[in-house]
């Protein structure tokens, strides 16, 4: 079952708006093997959703341009005609959206939403489609599927709706599933169930999955690889296990530190990342994270670090002063001594020197 399913090379996506050109994705490359999972992590506006939609060619509007290549099963998605894309959507690649409250049509019964594309891609009779819908709802653990089929979306809870959305996405057995923040709009208790459901379906069907999220805790233990995005670029890309064992990019580290921890005493100040994400109309020169980075050096502002392999070839990193390296330590101490605000902030919230390796509960 091995073999590359999706190979994205140097993908750029730009939105032209009156204020200028918003460079939402700036040169992203990655590849995904069949049946493997990739987590894309980054804060809001880092380009993860746009990246997923660009690969699927689902960016709406006429002001979007995407360049680069996205080879899916041997052909470039970016050069396919709309009709060719349509035959792939749903059947070969599917997407689960962020908000199940808005991604189901409020005026259409569950049954039609689950099966309408099934009937298009595969010829099914009415009763076969109904049976398929019942099976799908059972599959995503919806109790009493016969009744739920006749329900309208508003009659279901958020978790149930997301289960329906997953059933919709799985209906035609796609080989690639994009899950775009599938749990962000849900209750914490439901989040776990939905993520476990996605993981189980992914394993059972040997389907490749791209899990987009802003929450490192979501990808931990659930994806094979993780890609950390910042300002439209990939800053760190590694097998998930190795990433959590050894976070090298200051941004990855900062994301990790900003997760609230129950092990710390109450009222511990949360280590937020200082500053704001950059303006993507005019991204900063050099490393995009440099204005907020506690490790920033002159070189970071002048030269953009390339995404290159570290000692571990699978662990790729775009940073001049990686966390835990001698250069990084020296840079941090230097910034701390000169009173650089973001370095001081890190130092105050984390009295121990930044350590390599954080244990994650998954």
């Amino acid at each position, binding site marked *: 079952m091995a073999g590359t399913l999706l190979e994205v090379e140097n993908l750029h996506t730009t939105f032209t708006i009156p204020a200028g050109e918003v460079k939402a994705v700036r040169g992203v490359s990655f590849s995904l093997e069949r049946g493997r999972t990739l987590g894309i992590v980054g804060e809001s506006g880092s380009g993860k959703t746009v990246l997923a939609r660009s690969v699927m060619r689902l960016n709406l509007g006429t002001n979007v341009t995407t360049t680069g290549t996205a080879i899916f099963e041997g052909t470039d998605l970016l050069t396919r005609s709309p009709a060719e894309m349509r035959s792939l959507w749903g*059947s070969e690649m*599917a997407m689960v959206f962020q908000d199940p409250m*808005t991604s189901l*049509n409020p005026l259409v019964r569950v049954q039609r939403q689950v099966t*309408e594309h099934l009937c298009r891609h595969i010829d099914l009779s009415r009763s076969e489609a109904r049976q398929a819908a019942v099976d799908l709802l059972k599959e995503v653990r919806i109790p009493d599927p016969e009744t739920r089929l006749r329900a309208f979306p*508003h009659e279901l809870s958020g978790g149930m709706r997301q289960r329906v959305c997953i059933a919709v996405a799985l209906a035609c057995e796609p080989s690639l599933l994009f899950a775009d923040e599938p749990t962000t709009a849900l209750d914490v208790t439901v989040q776990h169930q939905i993520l476990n459901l996605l993981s189980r379906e992914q394993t059972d069907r040997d389907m490749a999955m791209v899990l987009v999220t802003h929450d490192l805790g979501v990808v931990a233990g659930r994806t094979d690889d993780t890609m950390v995005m910042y300002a439209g670029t990939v800053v760190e890309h590694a097998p998930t296990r190795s990433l959590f064992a050894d976070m090298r990019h200051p941004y990855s580290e900062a994301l990790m530190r900003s997760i609230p921890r129950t092990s710390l005493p109450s009222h511990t100040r949360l280590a937020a990342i200082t500053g704001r994400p950059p303006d993507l109309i005019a991204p900063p020169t050099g490393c995009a994270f440099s204005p907020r980075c506690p490790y920033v050096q002159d070189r970071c502002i002048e030269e953009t670090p390339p995404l290159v392999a570290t000692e571990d070839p699978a662990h790729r990193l775009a940073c001049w002063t990686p966390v835990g390296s001698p250069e990084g330590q020296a840079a941090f101490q230097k910034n701390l001594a000169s009173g650089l605000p973001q370095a001081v902030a890190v130092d105050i919230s984390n009295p121990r020197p930044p350590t390599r390796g954080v244990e994650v509960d998954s």
Partner: protein
Amino acid sequence: MATLLAVSFLTFLLVNLLPGDAINALIPIEAQQDQEYVAQVRAEWGLDDPMLVRYGKWLGDAVRGDLGDSIVTSRAVSGEIAHRIPVTGELMIVTVVFSVLMAVPLGVVSAYREGSRIDQFISGSAQFALSVPGFVAGLLFIYVFAMKLGWFPATGWTRISNSISGNLMTVTLPALSLSVIEVAVYARVVRSDLVATLKEDYILSAKSKGLKDGFILFRHALRPSSLTLITVVGLNIGLLLGGTVVVEFLFALPGLGKRLLDAIFQRDFMMVQGITVFVAMVYVVVNTLVDVVYLVVDPRIRKAD
């Protein structure tokens, strides 16, 4: 109900304020020399009673379905309305159906190709059509289609019971004249609702399922975008009733609007009163129906009660 009460009272008040005496309509000028006879007729019709008393009497009859008799023809007002309503009713139904059938595709194309030339053309034409009153369109249509091309009769009415094709010939031009503004209004409403709907997540999710654009437009986007259209159609019924008065006059159609106009000129206050209340009732009924249609279209409202 309160609406009907208010409408009937206000009409009663306004008809009373009209210059001219109903007595002029009741008896010829020559006979008015005879003061005794005038007084007798006045008493007979209750014209000397205070307005509120007369209104009370009229209302008492009206709730039992008796709208009184015309003071000109002495025929029952309700009978006259029943006789005239097929004309106006048909005219309005044809207008609404035709307008919706025209406007929905125009609005859909416009929204689907938002910002394109075709959208600009449709929106621009709608803007222009909005500023053309029904009677101007009517005169134009009579000139072009009746006088120059001779396709349709310029005036008159053929009852549907006499000839279906003849009836369709006579209803076409008046309905078209009334439709001009309606099409423009509906097309704009459909367009703006649909433009908003097409930005919804569930449209993107329908697209990601590999559904065809046409299927998404008509099976996913149109229904959520039709609520404003339904409201506007309901509200526009009132405007349309006003429009039929002018158009029926223009095309010499024996409809309710024409009868109302005649009644006003003749100071036939019972007739004016009766027709006005009837029209108000139609308006109320239609808008109640609109609320029912909402329930059919949007399942979320059904839950609310």
